[in-house]
């Protein structure tokens, strides 16, 4: 029997990186030298920040293109850049650059904003905290998930993808220690969760739904 799942929490502390841009061309240049941590932050950090930004433009680059540059086509293209589809931040950086450079090629006039609308490249320090909560068996997951804080959701379903191969979340990694055949439906349901669509509250609902459906499919 695998050990119990230890619920972790995390706190994010944002920091500046010193890079700030006011035009699309400057954004391209800055992306060439931005810290990997910063690119990561601008894809995922928004989930732990106060915002009412348009949730369909999931990453900060897309939101900036939409709200400040006011370029709908660029915002749409940037919103479709999927970090989960890339094994490394460098691959992700390349796709961002490709989208921006191809957009720049088609522009007839420069896209820029005034100082108030500039894009500040940030990064974050993550502090990981153990909680005293554990989940003993997969069948205990629904109750356990309801107790997860926002930080726990972030740590186990988003941060986890950087810690495991094949973008696994922590639950699926833990389930791997049980009878794989028995819990295959549950793992498959969890694999279908798209953590990139909306808020952490929505993510909790998605995961709970996947767990409930997956457990219903587990053989007696």
């Amino acid at each position, binding site marked *: 029997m695998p050990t119990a799942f230890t619920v*972790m*929490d995390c*706190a*994010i*502390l*944002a*920091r*500046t990186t*010193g890079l700030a841009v006011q035009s699309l061309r400057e954004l391209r240049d800055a992306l060439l030298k931005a810290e990997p*941590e910063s690119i990561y932050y601008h894809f995922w950090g928004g989930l732990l920040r*106060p915002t*009412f930004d348009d949730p369909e433009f999931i990453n900060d680059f897309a939101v900036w293109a939409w709200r400040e540059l006011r370029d709908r086509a660029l915002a749409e293209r940037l919103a479709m850049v999927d970090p989960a589809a890339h094994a490394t931040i460098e691959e992700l950086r390349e796709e961002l650059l490709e989208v921006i450079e191809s957009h720049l090629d088609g522009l007839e006039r420069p896209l820029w904003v005034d*100082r*108030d609308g*500039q894009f*500040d490249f*940030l*990064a974050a*320090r*993550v*502090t*990981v*905290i*153990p*909680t*005293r909560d554990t989940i003993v068996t997969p069948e205990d997951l629904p109750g356990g998930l309801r*107790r*997860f*804080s926002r*930080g*726990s959701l972030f740590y186990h379903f988003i941060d986890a993808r950087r810690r495991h191969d094949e973008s696994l979340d922590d639950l699926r990694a833990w389930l791997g220690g049980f009878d794989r055949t028995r819990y295959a439906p549950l793992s498959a349901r969890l694999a279908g969760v798209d953590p990139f669509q909306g808020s952490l509250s929505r993510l909790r609902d998605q995961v709970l739904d996947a767990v409930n459906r997956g457990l219903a499919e587990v053989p007696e």
Partner: protein
Amino acid sequence: MSALLTQYAEVVGDAVVEQLRALARPLTGLRVVHVNSTRVGGGVAEILTKMVPLMRELGLEVRWEVITGDDLFYSCTKTFHNALQGNQVNPTVTQLKAYEDTNLRNAERLRGVLSGAEIVVIHDPQPAPLLGHVPERKGRWVWRCHIDLSQPHRPVWKYLLPHVAGYDGSIFSLSSFARRLPHPCYLIPPSIDPLADKNRDLTDREVAAVRQQFNLDPDRYLVTQVSRFDRFKDPVGVIQAWEMARRYVPGLQLVLAGGTATDDPEGAEVLREVQEAAGQHPDVRILLLPADANVTINALQRASDLVIQKSTREGFGLTVTEGLWKGKPVIGGNVGGIRLQVHDHHTGFLVDTPEGAAVRMRYLLSHAGVRERMGARAREFVRENFLLTRHTTEYLALFHTLLEGRAERVDVA
């Protein structure tokens, strides 16, 4: 769980308080000192009044020290404050000497406490030179800048830079407030305390008593701005907006309620300008409230239909947070931290002019359902993002980071 933590858990939920306790556990006994320049008045003092006891409750050994100075010192730091927010003003040589001498005197008084602390948090420019006077310090020192430094008057910033460059890190409320410094700059928005007299729930009777005290008619609409009498808060612009809005909202009442801070010598002069702008109109109340009038301010915000904060420059704007927490839509100046809190059609409206404020007053006062929906959303927005518990969580995360060095990841386990 202690009584205090139980009270917070009732407001923010058990998971948030449990996270605080988990973060604090490895920091038990950590000697932390906060230093600022006033015990009462202003947002910094308000935050420390509540954060220090909470950190102590979590097991840290926290002290709050206040530097003391004379009028010349405070006139110098007020000039700094204005200059750092963009005004082209310079302190005199005499003022600068007072600034440096005052810090030296305070360093001598506080040397024992500061040199032995493991973490020292210096708030704003007033005590910034203390670092240079404590070379034997053992702990990590961080400069907490509550001011918007995005476009400072450069000569003043160049003067201050050597005083802050030597810190182990800085904290700013927003990325747009930060300047390039030779150490990490962290971003931590401030907060309000839901248990404080200024923010706790009040009974209808308490609110009615304050209405009666200031002769406010409960049957007519009321708009309130609470802030120091400071030109950056644009109180005269608020009066202009009220004058325009009352053409469409007859009988509209306006309250401008300002406290005083011991480190703000310009307040009296601005108050006179505001009184002049308001004339003798019976529907405008200009209230100069003592620093401890927290329940009064709370009741005024709750008695209002809208809260306004029409600043032209703003740090974070905690009065906005307070208004939102009372479930009121806020009409806020499109500057600084107000932009982080006021989201058009969600929690209120951002405005750039007195006309803009008047338009939004007129709209919101004629749409009760919109006011109610925005107000409910505003309160939840603050609950999730701008309460003292979140603020303390980030400070504790910062302490871990400062103690661990520059690692991108700190594992408390």
